[in-house]
Protein backbone atom coordinates (compact mmCIF):
# COMPACT_ATOMS: atom_id res chain seq x y z
CA UNK A 1 0.00 0.00 0.00
CA UNK A 2 1.39 3.38 -0.94
CA UNK A 3 0.37 6.54 0.80
CA UNK A 4 1.36 10.11 1.30
CA UNK A 5 3.54 10.83 4.29
CA UNK A 6 0.79 12.58 6.24
CA UNK A 7 -1.76 9.88 5.65
CA UNK A 8 0.80 7.46 6.96
CA UNK A 9 1.24 9.65 9.98
CA UNK A 10 -2.51 9.63 10.53
CA UNK A 11 -2.54 5.86 10.39
CA UNK A 12 0.37 5.75 12.81
CA UNK A 13 -1.56 7.93 15.20
CA UNK A 14 -4.77 5.92 14.89
CA UNK A 15 -2.98 2.61 15.39
CA UNK A 16 -1.00 3.87 18.38
CA UNK A 17 -4.15 5.28 19.90
CA UNK A 18 -5.97 1.98 19.50
CA UNK A 19 -2.98 0.17 20.97
CA UNK A 20 -3.01 2.48 23.94
CA UNK A 21 -6.74 2.13 24.57
CA UNK A 22 -6.81 -1.64 24.19
CA UNK A 23 -3.71 -2.41 26.18
CA UNK A 24 -4.64 -0.16 29.08
CA UNK A 25 -7.60 -2.46 29.59
CA UNK A 26 -5.65 -5.73 29.74
CA UNK A 27 -5.58 -7.10 33.29
CA UNK A 28 -2.33 -7.73 35.13
CA UNK A 29 -2.87 -11.49 34.96
CA UNK A 30 -2.23 -11.37 31.25
CA UNK A 31 0.77 -9.07 31.22
CA UNK A 32 3.34 -11.79 30.64
CA UNK A 33 1.62 -13.30 27.58
CA UNK A 34 0.89 -9.77 26.37
CA UNK A 35 4.56 -8.96 26.57
CA UNK A 36 5.65 -12.10 24.76
CA UNK A 37 2.83 -11.76 22.23
CA UNK A 38 3.53 -8.17 21.37
CA UNK A 39 7.18 -9.10 21.27
CA UNK A 40 6.36 -11.67 18.59
CA UNK A 41 4.47 -9.05 16.64
CA UNK A 42 7.52 -6.81 16.58
CA UNK A 43 9.03 -9.43 14.28
CA UNK A 44 6.73 -7.94 11.62
CA UNK A 45 9.90 -6.33 10.36
CA UNK A 46 10.40 -9.65 8.55
CA UNK A 47 8.12 -8.24 5.88
CA UNK A 48 10.56 -5.42 5.22
CA UNK A 49 13.37 -7.99 4.94
CA UNK A 50 11.38 -10.04 2.44
CA UNK A 51 10.59 -6.93 0.43
CA UNK A 52 14.18 -5.78 0.15
CA UNK A 53 15.84 -9.18 -0.26
CA UNK A 54 15.38 -9.37 -4.06
CA UNK A 55 16.72 -5.84 -4.39
CA UNK A 56 20.03 -6.07 -2.58
CA UNK A 57 21.76 -6.84 -5.87
CA UNK A 58 25.31 -8.08 -6.14
CA UNK A 59 26.68 -7.23 -2.73
CA UNK A 60 27.20 -10.45 -0.79
CA UNK A 61 27.68 -8.58 2.46
CA UNK A 62 24.35 -6.82 2.22
CA UNK A 63 22.71 -10.10 1.28
CA UNK A 64 24.11 -11.77 4.36
CA UNK A 65 22.97 -8.91 6.53
CA UNK A 66 19.44 -9.24 5.17
CA UNK A 67 19.60 -12.98 5.77
CA UNK A 68 20.61 -12.29 9.35
CA UNK A 69 17.67 -9.92 9.65
CA UNK A 70 15.42 -12.65 8.26
CA UNK A 71 16.76 -15.20 10.72
CA UNK A 72 16.36 -12.83 13.64
CA UNK A 73 12.87 -11.78 12.70
CA UNK A 74 11.70 -15.33 12.02
CA UNK A 75 13.06 -16.48 15.37
CA UNK A 76 11.28 -13.59 17.02
CA UNK A 77 7.97 -14.35 15.33
CA UNK A 78 7.88 -18.12 15.51
CA UNK A 79 9.45 -18.39 18.94
CA UNK A 80 7.38 -15.56 20.31
CA UNK A 81 4.02 -16.85 19.16
CA UNK A 82 4.86 -20.38 20.16
CA UNK A 83 5.82 -19.39 23.67
CA UNK A 84 2.80 -17.12 24.00
CA UNK A 85 0.63 -20.01 22.94
CA UNK A 86 2.21 -22.14 25.63
CA UNK A 87 1.54 -19.52 28.29
CA UNK A 88 -2.03 -18.94 27.18
CA UNK A 89 -2.68 -22.66 27.15
CA UNK A 90 -2.27 -22.48 30.92
CA UNK A 91 -4.94 -19.84 31.23
CA UNK A 92 -7.27 -21.80 29.00
CA UNK A 93 -7.25 -24.83 31.29
CA UNK A 94 -8.89 -22.64 33.91
CA UNK A 95 -12.11 -22.04 32.00
Amino acid at each position, binding site marked *: *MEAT*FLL*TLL*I*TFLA*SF*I*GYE*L*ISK*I*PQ*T*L*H*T*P*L*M*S*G*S*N*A*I*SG*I*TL*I*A*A*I*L*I*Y*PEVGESQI*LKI*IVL*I*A*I*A*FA*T*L*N*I*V*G*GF*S*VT*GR*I*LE*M*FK*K*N*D
Partner: protein
Amino acid sequence: MIEVILLVSSVLFIFALKLFGRPSTAHRANTFAMLAMALAVFSAFNFDFSNYDPAFYITIVVSGLLGVLISKRVQMTQMPELVGLFNGFGGGASGAIAYVELSKSTLPLSDYFVAIFSMVIGVFTFSGSIIAVLKLRGKLNNVNTTIANIFSAFLPPLILLPAIWEEMEILSLEYFMLLSLIAGIIRVAVIGGADMPVVIAFLNSLSGIAAMSAGFIVNSIILIVAGALVGASGIILTLLMCAAMNRTLLDVLKGGFGGAAINNEYDKDPISTSPEDVAIQLSYAESVVIVPGYGMAVAQAQAAVKELTNTLKDKNIEVKFAIHPVAGRMPGHMNVLLAEVDIDYEDMYTLEDINSEFSSTDVVIVLGANDVVNPLARTDENSPIYGMPILDVDLAKQVIVIKRSMSPGYAGIANPLFINDNAKMLFADAKEGLENIIKSFELV
Protein backbone atom coordinates in the same frame (compact mmCIF):
# COMPACT_ATOMS: atom_id res chain seq x y z
CA MET B 1 -5.31 -8.14 -3.98
CA ILE B 2 -2.17 -7.73 -1.89
CA GLU B 3 -3.71 -4.58 -0.48
CA VAL B 4 -6.83 -6.46 0.58
CA ILE B 5 -4.72 -9.06 2.35
CA LEU B 6 -2.83 -6.35 4.18
CA LEU B 7 -6.04 -4.64 5.16
CA VAL B 8 -7.37 -7.90 6.59
CA SER B 9 -4.07 -8.45 8.36
CA SER B 10 -4.18 -5.00 10.02
CA VAL B 11 -7.74 -5.58 11.15
CA LEU B 12 -6.82 -8.98 12.56
CA PHE B 13 -3.90 -7.55 14.53
CA ILE B 14 -6.22 -5.05 16.15
CA PHE B 15 -8.87 -7.60 17.00
CA ALA B 16 -6.13 -9.83 18.38
CA LEU B 17 -5.16 -7.09 20.78
CA LYS B 18 -8.77 -6.62 21.77
CA LEU B 19 -9.23 -10.32 22.46
CA PHE B 20 -6.12 -10.21 24.61
CA GLY B 21 -8.14 -8.24 27.13
CA ARG B 22 -9.74 -11.23 28.86
CA PRO B 23 -8.25 -14.51 30.03
CA SER B 24 -11.09 -16.43 28.40
CA THR B 25 -10.44 -15.00 24.93
CA ALA B 26 -6.68 -14.50 25.12
CA HIS B 27 -5.73 -17.79 23.53
CA ARG B 28 -7.89 -16.90 20.55
CA ALA B 29 -6.02 -13.59 20.44
CA ASN B 30 -2.79 -15.45 19.79
CA THR B 31 -4.36 -17.36 16.92
CA PHE B 32 -5.63 -14.12 15.42
CA ALA B 33 -2.22 -12.51 15.70
CA MET B 34 -0.54 -15.53 14.12
CA LEU B 35 -3.00 -15.49 11.26
CA ALA B 36 -2.47 -11.76 10.79
CA MET B 37 1.27 -12.32 10.72
CA ALA B 38 1.00 -15.20 8.27
CA LEU B 39 -1.11 -13.09 5.91
CA ALA B 40 1.30 -10.17 6.14
CA VAL B 41 4.32 -12.38 5.44
CA PHE B 42 2.53 -14.09 2.58
CA SER B 43 1.58 -10.76 1.02
CA ALA B 44 5.19 -9.60 1.09
CA PHE B 45 6.03 -12.18 -1.57
CA ASN B 46 3.52 -10.55 -3.91
CA PHE B 47 2.62 -13.99 -5.33
CA ASP B 48 6.08 -14.39 -6.77
CA PHE B 49 8.04 -16.94 -4.81
CA SER B 50 10.63 -17.41 -7.52
CA ASN B 51 12.40 -14.17 -6.65
CA TYR B 52 13.95 -15.92 -3.71
CA ASP B 53 16.93 -18.25 -3.67
CA PRO B 54 17.46 -21.36 -1.55
CA ALA B 55 19.58 -19.44 0.98
CA PHE B 56 16.51 -17.39 1.74
CA TYR B 57 14.17 -20.31 2.25
CA ILE B 58 16.71 -22.27 4.25
CA THR B 59 17.24 -19.31 6.57
CA ILE B 60 13.53 -18.99 7.17
CA VAL B 61 12.94 -22.67 7.81
CA VAL B 62 15.96 -23.19 10.02
CA SER B 63 15.36 -20.14 12.17
CA GLY B 64 11.67 -20.96 12.37
CA LEU B 65 12.41 -24.47 13.61
CA LEU B 66 14.93 -23.09 16.03
CA GLY B 67 12.31 -20.72 17.35
CA VAL B 68 9.85 -23.54 17.98
CA LEU B 69 12.54 -25.64 19.61
CA ILE B 70 13.67 -22.93 21.99
CA SER B 71 10.13 -22.00 22.91
CA LYS B 72 9.16 -25.59 23.71
CA ARG B 73 12.26 -26.21 25.79
CA VAL B 74 12.24 -23.14 27.94
CA GLN B 75 10.84 -23.31 31.45
CA MET B 76 8.15 -20.93 32.59
CA THR B 77 10.53 -19.43 35.13
CA GLN B 78 12.89 -18.44 32.31
CA MET B 79 10.20 -16.51 30.48
CA PRO B 80 11.68 -13.07 31.24
CA GLU B 81 15.01 -14.01 29.67
CA LEU B 82 13.35 -15.53 26.64
CA VAL B 83 11.18 -12.51 25.96
CA GLY B 84 14.23 -10.31 26.32
CA LEU B 85 16.20 -12.45 23.90
CA PHE B 86 13.52 -12.58 21.21
CA ASN B 87 12.99 -8.89 21.63
CA GLY B 88 16.63 -8.25 20.92
CA PHE B 89 16.33 -10.28 17.74
CA GLY B 90 13.37 -8.22 16.57
CA GLY B 91 15.22 -4.99 17.17
CA GLY B 92 18.35 -6.35 15.52
CA ALA B 93 16.39 -7.30 12.43
CA SER B 94 14.97 -3.81 12.08
CA GLY B 95 18.40 -2.32 12.60
CA ALA B 96 19.92 -4.58 9.96
CA ILE B 97 17.22 -3.70 7.44
CA ALA B 98 17.69 -0.01 8.03
CA TYR B 99 21.43 -0.46 7.53
CA VAL B 100 20.91 -2.22 4.19
CA GLU B 101 18.51 0.45 3.00
CA LEU B 102 20.95 3.14 4.04
CA SER B 103 23.72 1.45 2.06
CA LYS B 104 21.70 1.98 -1.09
CA SER B 105 22.42 5.48 -2.28
CA THR B 106 18.92 5.91 -3.70
CA LEU B 107 17.14 6.79 -0.47
CA PRO B 108 15.36 10.18 -0.46
CA LEU B 109 16.43 12.56 2.26
CA SER B 110 13.29 12.25 4.39
CA ASP B 111 13.56 8.48 4.39
CA TYR B 112 17.25 8.82 5.15
CA PHE B 113 16.61 10.26 8.56
CA VAL B 114 13.88 7.78 9.34
CA ALA B 115 16.28 5.00 8.36
CA ILE B 116 19.03 6.35 10.59
CA PHE B 117 16.51 6.51 13.41
CA SER B 118 15.39 2.95 12.74
CA MET B 119 18.96 1.66 12.64
CA VAL B 120 19.97 3.39 15.85
CA ILE B 121 16.88 2.25 17.74
CA GLY B 122 17.08 -1.27 16.35
CA VAL B 123 20.73 -1.81 17.17
CA PHE B 124 20.31 -0.23 20.59
CA THR B 125 17.45 -2.61 21.28
CA PHE B 126 19.56 -5.53 20.16
CA SER B 127 22.60 -4.91 22.34
CA GLY B 128 20.52 -3.65 25.26
CA SER B 129 18.37 -6.77 25.21
CA ILE B 130 21.37 -9.10 25.20
CA ILE B 131 22.78 -7.36 28.24
CA ALA B 132 19.37 -7.47 29.92
CA VAL B 133 19.20 -11.22 29.39
CA LEU B 134 22.68 -11.74 30.80
CA LYS B 135 21.75 -9.68 33.83
CA LEU B 136 18.59 -11.65 34.39
CA ARG B 137 20.62 -14.83 34.29
CA GLY B 138 22.88 -13.31 36.92
CA LYS B 139 25.86 -13.44 34.56
CA LEU B 140 26.62 -9.76 34.91
CA ASN B 141 26.99 -7.54 37.94
CA ASN B 142 25.92 -3.94 38.12
CA VAL B 143 28.28 -1.59 36.42
CA ASN B 144 29.13 1.69 38.05
CA THR B 145 26.96 4.51 36.73
CA THR B 146 29.94 6.80 36.18
CA ILE B 147 30.83 4.89 33.00
CA ALA B 148 27.41 5.66 31.63
CA ASN B 149 27.68 9.28 32.67
CA ILE B 150 31.02 9.68 30.97
CA PHE B 151 29.69 8.03 27.83
CA SER B 152 26.64 10.29 27.80
CA ALA B 153 28.83 13.35 28.21
CA PHE B 154 30.99 12.36 25.26
CA LEU B 155 28.08 11.31 23.06
CA PRO B 156 27.47 14.69 21.36
CA PRO B 157 31.06 15.10 20.11
CA LEU B 158 31.16 11.41 19.18
CA ILE B 159 28.04 11.83 17.08
CA LEU B 160 29.39 14.91 15.36
CA LEU B 161 32.75 13.28 14.62
CA PRO B 162 31.98 12.12 11.05
CA ALA B 163 30.82 15.62 10.17
CA ILE B 164 34.18 17.04 11.17
CA TRP B 165 36.67 14.35 10.31
CA GLU B 166 36.37 13.75 6.59
CA GLU B 167 38.09 10.40 6.44
CA MET B 168 35.38 8.96 8.63
CA GLU B 169 32.53 9.93 6.35
CA ILE B 170 32.53 6.81 4.24
CA LEU B 171 32.35 4.66 7.31
CA SER B 172 29.88 6.85 9.16
CA LEU B 173 27.06 4.30 8.87
CA GLU B 174 29.08 1.58 10.50
CA TYR B 175 30.31 4.10 13.02
CA PHE B 176 26.78 5.05 14.04
CA MET B 177 25.88 1.43 14.26
CA LEU B 178 28.78 0.83 16.60
CA LEU B 179 27.85 3.82 18.72
CA SER B 180 24.28 2.54 19.09
CA LEU B 181 25.59 -0.89 19.98
CA ILE B 182 27.80 0.52 22.70
CA ALA B 183 25.07 2.84 23.92
CA GLY B 184 22.72 -0.13 24.33
CA ILE B 185 25.32 -2.09 26.27
CA ILE B 186 26.33 0.72 28.60
CA ARG B 187 22.84 2.03 29.23
CA VAL B 188 21.51 -1.36 30.31
CA ALA B 189 24.67 -2.44 32.11
CA VAL B 190 24.28 0.26 34.76
CA ILE B 191 20.70 -0.71 35.58
CA GLY B 192 20.13 -3.16 38.41
CA GLY B 193 19.05 -6.72 37.71
CA ALA B 194 15.57 -6.43 39.18
CA ASP B 195 14.83 -3.45 37.00
CA MET B 196 15.38 -5.60 33.93
CA PRO B 197 11.63 -6.17 33.42
CA VAL B 198 11.17 -2.44 32.99
CA VAL B 199 14.14 -2.36 30.63
CA ILE B 200 12.79 -5.26 28.60
CA ALA B 201 9.32 -3.76 28.30
CA PHE B 202 10.90 -0.48 27.29
CA LEU B 203 13.10 -2.19 24.71
CA ASN B 204 10.03 -4.04 23.51
CA SER B 205 8.41 -0.69 22.89
CA LEU B 206 11.55 0.45 21.05
CA SER B 207 11.56 -2.64 18.86
CA GLY B 208 7.99 -1.77 17.86
CA ILE B 209 9.06 1.75 17.03
CA ALA B 210 12.00 0.41 15.01
CA ALA B 211 9.63 -1.82 13.03
CA MET B 212 7.32 1.12 12.53
CA SER B 213 10.08 3.28 11.13
CA ALA B 214 11.20 0.41 8.90
CA GLY B 215 7.62 0.57 7.62
CA PHE B 216 8.11 4.21 6.69
CA ILE B 217 11.25 3.31 4.71
CA VAL B 218 9.92 0.36 2.74
CA ASN B 219 6.49 2.03 2.51
CA SER B 220 4.53 -0.72 4.17
CA ILE B 221 1.45 0.19 6.17
CA ILE B 222 1.26 -3.14 7.94
CA LEU B 223 4.65 -2.56 9.54
CA ILE B 224 3.40 0.78 10.74
CA VAL B 225 0.17 -0.57 12.19
CA ALA B 226 1.79 -3.56 13.89
CA GLY B 227 4.81 -1.55 15.00
CA ALA B 228 2.59 1.11 16.54
CA LEU B 229 0.64 -1.53 18.46
CA VAL B 230 3.84 -3.02 19.87
CA GLY B 231 5.21 0.42 20.66
CA ALA B 232 2.07 1.30 22.61
CA SER B 233 1.99 -2.02 24.41
CA GLY B 234 5.61 -1.79 25.53
CA ILE B 235 5.36 1.72 26.78
CA ILE B 236 2.18 1.05 28.76
CA LEU B 237 3.72 -1.96 30.51
CA THR B 238 6.82 0.11 31.22
CA LEU B 239 4.86 2.91 32.79
CA LEU B 240 2.65 0.53 34.78
CA MET B 241 5.70 -1.08 36.30
CA CYS B 242 7.26 2.27 37.10
CA ALA B 243 4.03 3.41 38.74
CA ALA B 244 3.94 0.20 40.78
CA MET B 245 7.38 1.05 42.12
CA ASN B 246 6.66 4.77 42.49
CA ARG B 247 9.64 5.57 40.31
CA THR B 248 9.85 7.41 37.02
CA LEU B 249 11.06 5.75 33.83
CA LEU B 250 13.95 8.20 33.70
CA ASP B 251 14.88 7.24 37.21
CA VAL B 252 14.97 3.56 36.29
CA LEU B 253 16.99 4.14 33.12
CA LYS B 254 19.47 6.30 34.98
CA GLY B 255 20.46 3.13 36.78
CA GLY B 256 22.31 2.69 40.02
CA PHE B 257 19.27 1.54 41.94
CA GLY B 258 19.39 -1.42 44.30
CA GLY B 259 22.27 -3.67 45.17
CA ALA B 260 23.63 -1.24 47.73
CA ALA B 261 23.29 -2.62 51.24
CA ILE B 262 22.09 0.27 53.33
CA ASN B 263 20.68 0.12 56.86
CA ASN B 264 20.70 -3.60 56.80
CA GLU B 265 20.52 -4.31 60.48
CA TYR B 266 17.70 -5.37 62.69
CA ASP B 267 17.44 -4.20 66.31
CA LYS B 268 15.57 -7.34 67.27
CA ASP B 269 15.76 -11.02 66.44
CA PRO B 270 13.02 -12.44 64.28
CA ILE B 271 10.82 -15.24 65.59
CA SER B 272 11.56 -18.33 63.60
CA THR B 273 9.14 -21.15 63.21
CA SER B 274 8.97 -24.75 61.95
CA PRO B 275 6.93 -26.44 59.23
CA GLU B 276 4.97 -28.30 61.94
CA ASP B 277 4.00 -25.09 63.70
CA VAL B 278 2.97 -23.52 60.42
CA ALA B 279 0.80 -26.53 59.60
CA ILE B 280 -0.94 -26.32 62.94
CA GLN B 281 -1.47 -22.61 62.61
CA LEU B 282 -2.89 -23.01 59.11
CA SER B 283 -5.33 -25.69 60.15
CA TYR B 284 -6.92 -23.28 62.63
CA ALA B 285 -7.22 -20.51 60.07
CA GLU B 286 -10.38 -19.65 58.16
CA SER B 287 -8.80 -17.42 55.57
CA VAL B 288 -5.30 -17.63 54.11
CA VAL B 289 -3.66 -15.26 51.65
CA ILE B 290 -0.52 -16.36 49.82
CA VAL B 291 1.84 -13.64 48.57
CA PRO B 292 4.27 -15.07 46.02
CA GLY B 293 7.46 -13.28 45.04
CA TYR B 294 10.66 -13.74 43.12
CA GLY B 295 11.72 -16.53 45.49
CA MET B 296 8.83 -18.72 44.34
CA ALA B 297 10.10 -18.44 40.77
CA VAL B 298 13.69 -19.16 41.75
CA ALA B 299 12.71 -22.20 43.79
CA GLN B 300 10.18 -23.35 41.15
CA ALA B 301 7.78 -23.77 44.00
CA GLN B 302 4.54 -23.34 42.08
CA ALA B 303 3.55 -27.01 42.13
CA ALA B 304 4.04 -27.10 45.91
CA VAL B 305 1.88 -23.99 46.16
CA LYS B 306 -0.87 -25.78 44.31
CA GLU B 307 -0.61 -28.78 46.60
CA LEU B 308 -0.79 -26.64 49.71
CA THR B 309 -3.79 -24.80 48.26
CA ASN B 310 -5.59 -28.06 47.66
CA THR B 311 -4.82 -29.27 51.15
CA LEU B 312 -6.17 -26.07 52.66
CA LYS B 313 -9.25 -25.98 50.44
CA ASP B 314 -10.03 -29.55 51.41
CA LYS B 315 -10.21 -28.31 54.97
CA ASN B 316 -12.64 -25.56 53.86
CA ILE B 317 -10.06 -22.89 54.37
CA GLU B 318 -10.41 -19.97 51.98
CA VAL B 319 -7.22 -19.40 49.96
CA LYS B 320 -6.49 -16.25 47.95
CA PHE B 321 -3.41 -15.07 46.12
CA ALA B 322 -2.25 -11.48 46.41
CA ILE B 323 -0.14 -10.49 43.46
CA HIS B 324 1.84 -7.31 43.47
CA PRO B 325 2.25 -5.75 40.02
CA VAL B 326 6.05 -6.03 40.17
CA ALA B 327 6.40 -9.24 42.15
CA GLY B 328 8.94 -11.44 40.48
CA ARG B 329 10.94 -10.43 37.47
CA MET B 330 8.39 -9.50 34.84
CA PRO B 331 4.86 -8.09 34.83
CA GLY B 332 2.35 -10.86 35.41
CA HIS B 333 5.20 -13.27 36.21
CA MET B 334 3.48 -14.73 39.28
CA ASN B 335 0.16 -15.05 37.48
CA VAL B 336 1.73 -17.19 34.79
CA LEU B 337 3.53 -19.45 37.24
CA LEU B 338 0.32 -19.96 39.21
CA ALA B 339 -1.70 -20.51 36.06
CA GLU B 340 0.89 -23.12 35.07
CA VAL B 341 -0.23 -25.27 38.00
CA ASP B 342 -3.93 -24.67 37.32
CA ILE B 343 -4.65 -22.13 39.98
CA ASP B 344 -7.80 -20.30 39.00
CA TYR B 345 -7.22 -16.70 37.97
CA GLU B 346 -10.37 -15.80 39.86
CA ASP B 347 -8.36 -16.49 43.01
CA MET B 348 -5.56 -14.10 42.06
CA TYR B 349 -6.10 -10.62 43.45
CA THR B 350 -4.43 -7.37 42.54
CA LEU B 351 -3.04 -4.96 45.09
CA GLU B 352 -6.05 -2.65 44.93
CA ASP B 353 -8.49 -5.50 45.35
CA ILE B 354 -6.92 -7.24 48.30
CA ASN B 355 -5.25 -4.57 50.42
CA SER B 356 -8.41 -3.79 52.34
CA GLU B 357 -8.84 -7.48 53.18
CA PHE B 358 -5.59 -8.16 55.00
CA SER B 359 -6.87 -6.87 58.33
CA SER B 360 -9.49 -9.61 58.32
CA THR B 361 -7.15 -12.36 57.13
CA ASP B 362 -6.04 -15.01 59.59
CA VAL B 363 -2.74 -16.09 58.05
CA VAL B 364 -0.66 -14.57 55.28
CA ILE B 365 2.09 -16.68 53.74
CA VAL B 366 4.81 -14.56 52.15
CA LEU B 367 6.58 -16.90 49.77
CA GLY B 368 9.94 -15.63 48.59
CA ALA B 369 8.62 -12.09 48.34
CA ASN B 370 10.35 -9.24 50.06
CA ASP B 371 10.29 -5.70 48.70
CA VAL B 372 6.65 -5.90 47.68
CA VAL B 373 5.63 -6.41 51.33
CA ASN B 374 8.10 -4.03 52.95
CA PRO B 375 6.19 -1.61 55.21
CA LEU B 376 9.05 0.91 55.00
CA ALA B 377 7.50 1.92 51.69
CA ARG B 378 4.69 3.41 53.75
CA THR B 379 6.64 4.76 56.68
CA ASP B 380 10.26 5.64 55.92
CA GLU B 381 10.63 8.71 53.75
CA ASN B 382 14.33 8.09 53.26
CA SER B 383 13.91 4.56 52.02
CA PRO B 384 14.60 4.03 48.30
CA ILE B 385 11.25 2.30 48.00
CA TYR B 386 9.32 5.02 49.84
CA GLY B 387 5.96 5.65 48.22
CA MET B 388 5.89 2.35 46.34
CA PRO B 389 2.42 0.84 46.79
CA ILE B 390 2.90 -2.40 48.74
CA LEU B 391 0.78 -5.30 49.90
CA ASP B 392 -0.12 -4.44 53.50
CA VAL B 393 0.41 -7.96 54.86
CA ASP B 394 1.62 -6.57 58.19
CA LEU B 395 -2.03 -5.78 58.97
CA ALA B 396 -3.00 -9.47 58.96
CA LYS B 397 -3.44 -11.44 62.18
CA GLN B 398 -0.45 -13.69 61.45
CA VAL B 399 2.28 -13.50 58.81
CA ILE B 400 4.55 -16.39 57.89
CA VAL B 401 7.54 -15.51 55.74
CA ILE B 402 9.21 -18.33 53.85
CA LYS B 403 12.69 -17.44 52.61
CA ARG B 404 16.16 -18.80 53.07
CA SER B 405 17.73 -16.07 55.20
CA MET B 406 17.33 -12.54 56.50
CA SER B 407 19.04 -11.18 53.39
CA PRO B 408 17.28 -8.32 51.67
CA GLY B 409 15.38 -8.30 48.38
CA TYR B 410 16.37 -6.50 45.26
CA ALA B 411 16.13 -3.04 46.77
CA GLY B 412 18.81 -4.04 49.25
CA ILE B 413 17.06 -2.81 52.37
CA ALA B 414 16.02 -4.47 55.58
CA ASN B 415 12.38 -5.41 55.94
CA PRO B 416 10.92 -4.59 59.40
CA LEU B 417 8.03 -6.93 58.61
CA PHE B 418 10.30 -9.83 59.50
CA ILE B 419 10.64 -8.64 63.12
CA ASN B 420 7.02 -7.60 63.46
CA ASP B 421 5.21 -9.11 66.46
CA ASN B 422 2.74 -10.93 64.24
CA ALA B 423 5.39 -12.33 61.89
CA LYS B 424 7.28 -15.61 61.98
CA MET B 425 10.13 -16.67 59.70
CA LEU B 426 10.35 -20.11 58.16
CA PHE B 427 13.93 -20.19 56.91
CA ALA B 428 13.86 -22.53 53.94
CA ASP B 429 13.92 -22.76 50.21
CA ALA B 430 10.40 -21.90 49.06
CA LYS B 431 9.74 -25.31 47.54
CA GLU B 432 11.22 -27.38 50.36
CA GLY B 433 9.55 -25.21 52.97
CA LEU B 434 6.15 -25.75 51.44
CA GLU B 435 6.68 -29.46 50.96
CA ASN B 436 7.62 -29.80 54.61
CA ILE B 437 4.51 -27.94 55.64
CA ILE B 438 2.38 -30.23 53.51
CA LYS B 439 4.07 -33.30 55.03
CA SER B 440 3.42 -31.97 58.51
CA PHE B 441 -0.24 -31.65 57.64
CA GLU B 442 -0.40 -35.37 57.12
CA LEU B 443 0.82 -35.80 60.67
CA VAL B 444 -1.50 -33.23 62.24
